[in-house]
């Protein structure tokens, strides 16, 4: 089995995902596939790409759900982007029999050392979030790297050193930062918007945070509101003439 870093990493790099603005467009899904199929975990293979059951390794997927709030209220359609949450207590690491899965001591990013991965799939079973995918051709486990070869890439201009999914998101629903630093913009967003952990009761302490969708309106107030009839003499035209003055 594999050990987590002996002390919590000084930085906790992760994503803050805004469920209030995600329109489910899949931009992050495909930009992730695109970057990473030629990046650190290259390739992300596809099987039967033009056939009966096209499938492949993706590090980020978006699912749509219809939600009916407990206790009534307005139903909503919510789009839920899902990728590795880079947990503090990453069971996918501790369960790994070969040391292939590991959590970086410096920034908390969970990675796979493919040279050691035997494709046993234990980590995928251990992950409660379903965030790991076995590459169907390479036979090794693939997962979100937070685009580690972008965020530390000194050949890229500073402004581009962010994960591909964050750079591409048209609705600005994805934010990247150090969640261990309460002053970071990402952490402040979490504080301001009530960001939450997925399934905190399981105790994995995920780094990534989700911002809740704001409640939607349903129905009308009691008593109902309506514009008053135009006031003053002359009805509409009296009012228009007063508006125009003279």
């Amino acid at each position, binding site marked *: 089995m594999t050990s987590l870093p002996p002390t919590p990493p000084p930085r906790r790099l992760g994503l803050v995902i805004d469920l209030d*603005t*995600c329109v489910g467009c899949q931009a992050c899904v495909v930009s992730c596939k695109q970057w990473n199929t030629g990046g650190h975990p290259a390739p992300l293979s596809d099987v039967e790409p033009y056939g009966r059951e096209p499938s492949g390794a993706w590090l980020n997927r978006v699912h749509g759900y219809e939600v009916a709030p407990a206790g009534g209220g307005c139903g909503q359609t919510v789009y839920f982007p899902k990728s590795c949450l880079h947990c503090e207590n990453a069971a996918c690491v501790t369960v790994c029999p070969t040391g292939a899965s590991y959590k970086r001591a410096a920034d908390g990013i969970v990675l796979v050392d493919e040279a050691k991965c035997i494709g046993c799939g234990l980590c995928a079973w251990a992950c409660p979030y379903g965030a790991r995918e076995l590459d169907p051709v390479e036979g090794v486990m693939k997962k979100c790297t937070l685009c580690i070869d972008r965020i530390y890439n000194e*050949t890229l201009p500073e402004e581009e050193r962010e994960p591909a999914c964050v750079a591409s998101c048209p609705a600005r629903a994805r934010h990247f930062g150090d969640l261990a630093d309460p002053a970071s913009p990402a952490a402040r967003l979490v504080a301001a918007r009530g960001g939450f952990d997925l399934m905190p009761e399981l105790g994995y302490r995920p780094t990534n945070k989700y911002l809740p*969708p704001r409640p939607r309106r349903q129905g009308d107030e009691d008593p109902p509101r*309506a514009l008053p009839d*135009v*006031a003053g003499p002359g009805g509409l035209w009296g009012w228009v003439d007063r508006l125009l003055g003279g």
Partner: protein
Amino acid sequence: MAEPVLDLSRPTADEVKTTTCYMCACRCGIRVHLSDGRLRYIEGNRRHPVNRGVLCAKGSAGIMQQLAPSRLRAPLLRTGPRGSGEFRRISWDEALAIATDWLRSIRATDPRRLAFFTGRDQSQALTGFWAAQFGTPNYAAHGGFCSVNMAAAGLYTLGGSFWEFGEPDWERTRYLLLVGVAEDHDSNPIKRGLAELKARGAKIVSVNPVRTGYSAIADEWLPIRPGTDGLLILALIHELLRAGRIDASYLQRWTNAGWLVVDAPGEASDGLIARDAEGRPLVRDRARGIVVPFASGDAALHGRTTLPDGRHARPVLELVAERYLDAAYSPDAVAERTGLPAATIRRLAVEIAAAAFTDPPVLEQPWTDWTGQRHARVEGRPVAIHAMRGVAAHANGFQTCRALHLLQLLLGAVDVPGAWRFKLPHPKPIPPAPKPAGKAVQMAPGRPLAGMPLGYPTGPEDLLVDPDGTPRRLDKAFSWDAPLAVHGMLHTVIRNAVRGDPYPIDTLFLYMTNMAWNSAMSTAETIDLLTATDPTTGAYRIPRIIYSDAFHSEMVAYADLVLPDTTYLERWDCISLLDRPIGSPDAIQDAIRQPVLAPDRDVRPFQDVLIDLGHRLGLPAFTAADGGPRFPGGYPDYLQHHERRPGIGPLAGWRGAAGDKIGKGEPNPAQLERYRANGCFFSAPLAPEQRWMKHVNRDYLKLAAQIGLIDDAAPIVLQLYSEPLQRFRLAARGHGAVRPPASHRARIERFFDPLPFWYRPFDQELSGDAYPLHALTQRPMAMYHSWGGHNAWLRQLHAANRLHVHRATAARLGLADDDWVWIVGRLGRVRARIRLVEGVHPDTVWTWNAIGRRRGTAGLSGDAPEATEGFLLNHLIDDRLPATDGAEFANADPITGQAAWFDLLVRLEKAEARGPSPDWAPLPAPPGAAPPPRVLRHGAPARGGEFP
């Protein structure tokens, strides 16, 4: 255990090239990273004004478009029967010689016998010009089935439109009403804008029968019954008028609200605008009580007036108030039809009025109006509207869209802070000046058309009809069937050509439009029509079909000659101010595509081919004085050197020999180089005093005239009341020299109402109670019509479309999730699999558009889910209406001819069998196509591996 040492600073590419995306019509700037000459990565260009760095799923999947096995590889000549998909590979020399031979004889005898129609074509400034040079009026792109209702209603009301000729002031709006907007134009800017509004706490209301995408994140979702949006909008207008919550000053000064409408029932001038001898509209001056020409002065907005010639007239706004204050437009009267509670409609009116008039933003930005009066500031009306296909694709869409613009005008919410704003080159005159060409006197064998095929009629005399009323265009655009069909009617071309109605043709020339599948209505019948023969001769009714496409779409099998196009990454292109540019409210902008890869197949950019054909045919604009090609360098040569008018060409940036002129200036041979150096776009900001109230802003209008966006700096007065519509109506009443035939009179009289009104769409009316469910399609955000069907990544997101049905509706019908059903319409039935949802109007079912494919196309295996589980709703959408009183009309808006594909009504029946129905024979892959790979390992070289 030590962590592995990672090399995290590998360069991403050997080379990065900028260009413009074309995975949909949005025109985002991209940066293409190339490694060893191969595509490594495509990202949004952070400097680009359209997307500012973001990129959607389609754009990020460009690599798989470039690698798709369905790419055509060489010119093809049909060898088997049409539709068999049997071809032989030919050389370009042979292909061009055949095309030239076919087209030359047509041009020499009757140029109308060439019908040239394109799809989602971003080179319309070239393709339309080529058609005009050839001499045929039978040209249009796909606008007739896309959103011409939106474009036309806007251009006849505001001189701009929703969609790409205008946009919400995302920075300042406080209330955004989205009406019938799914994943429509323009995709990334809307997403960026919605996020910006949410961050500011602005309210977003989505009127849409389906709760997905933008509607899912809206603060309020209003599931309206399809086709009734006009009633909702007119009820909001009723409420605002009842309460006097209108911007009287804006209306008086910048719109035709005060213009006097002649009230002379039975006379030829009834309902026209009263004008003086110089043609200037007349108003009654409030203070002096006399009739004077309109300026921005003190026009009365109500009160009957006697004109100097003794006729009576009333101001437009009085007619508006009289119409919409009627109880027929009250929230109570429309609630049942729209499916929205009256209380909700009343509350919306309260919210809109509050957002518009309570403490509106004021910009301390001085500007000067067209009369020379200086204004110290611009007052905002922070209510913006964006509407799209949910409004446009109904047979009442033109008038519904006019209603939306009327609402904007009553609020004074046009081109002011927080409102909808014009994107350049708009505003244009209302309507824009060019008229459609194609009258008998405008054409002759061997000669160019005297004008452009598409334009903007302002009265019956501008129609393209013979003296007996027979349409002069094959598609019947600009005839009494659809007088304002300003984008043409692609959806009528094939049936009309087969019937020889109004006349037969020789050659149908199509570019990137999948008319044998998702770009057609009544698809099954259209496929039959493409292969219809004359029983006596056995000859095809459409004798020749030439088709250009980059991919193996369903249409390829129905062509006689196939001209393979390149992908968007392999060619030059121009996003021109003469066509559909990358407009902005604050800057003059256009863009180009440049080739970032060389084609690895025997294919050519269609634009190059068209220019080459133009020279081979001797078209004057494409032939030099010595008989050689005018543009030997092909499309890039044309882009730099073609002048439409002196000094005005396809690109506005870096004109003039020194590259220092904007808009107007002599050709610059280094122009494309300047675009490339600037990320493949041009953007010149307007001065701050030119940015607002552009329709009446003297400094803006002067600039626009100077750089050729408009012909002169005359003010553009916004039109609540549409006089051109009244001119058609008067013709129906027997006035004027050009009058509709008896079969069309009642139709013109009814629908050409100069004020917006609502009527039930024809197909809905016809279908009756046997078909209780509205059936809609929408485009998924990750797929652009059928363009993504051959894309290995995008098809993993959408490979088999379901029919989405409300849970309660399904329960009532005894249907369960995953069931197979028959979708039955008056035209036939299609088998589909259902998915139960709650976020839909209970009387509406919907599916993703163009996911279903015909077997054997798009480079997919015959058992691909697109063909075995996916389906196409188009089979059920009629392209015409049953004949009544001897006249048969397209299933379309009676004003613009917009295809009414959102008017479909169906019922559902449980199907015992599964699988596709109708199901056609599979189409074979074109000759030379390599078998699709079983595995993709794109990017493997990054780790020292190899491409499989």
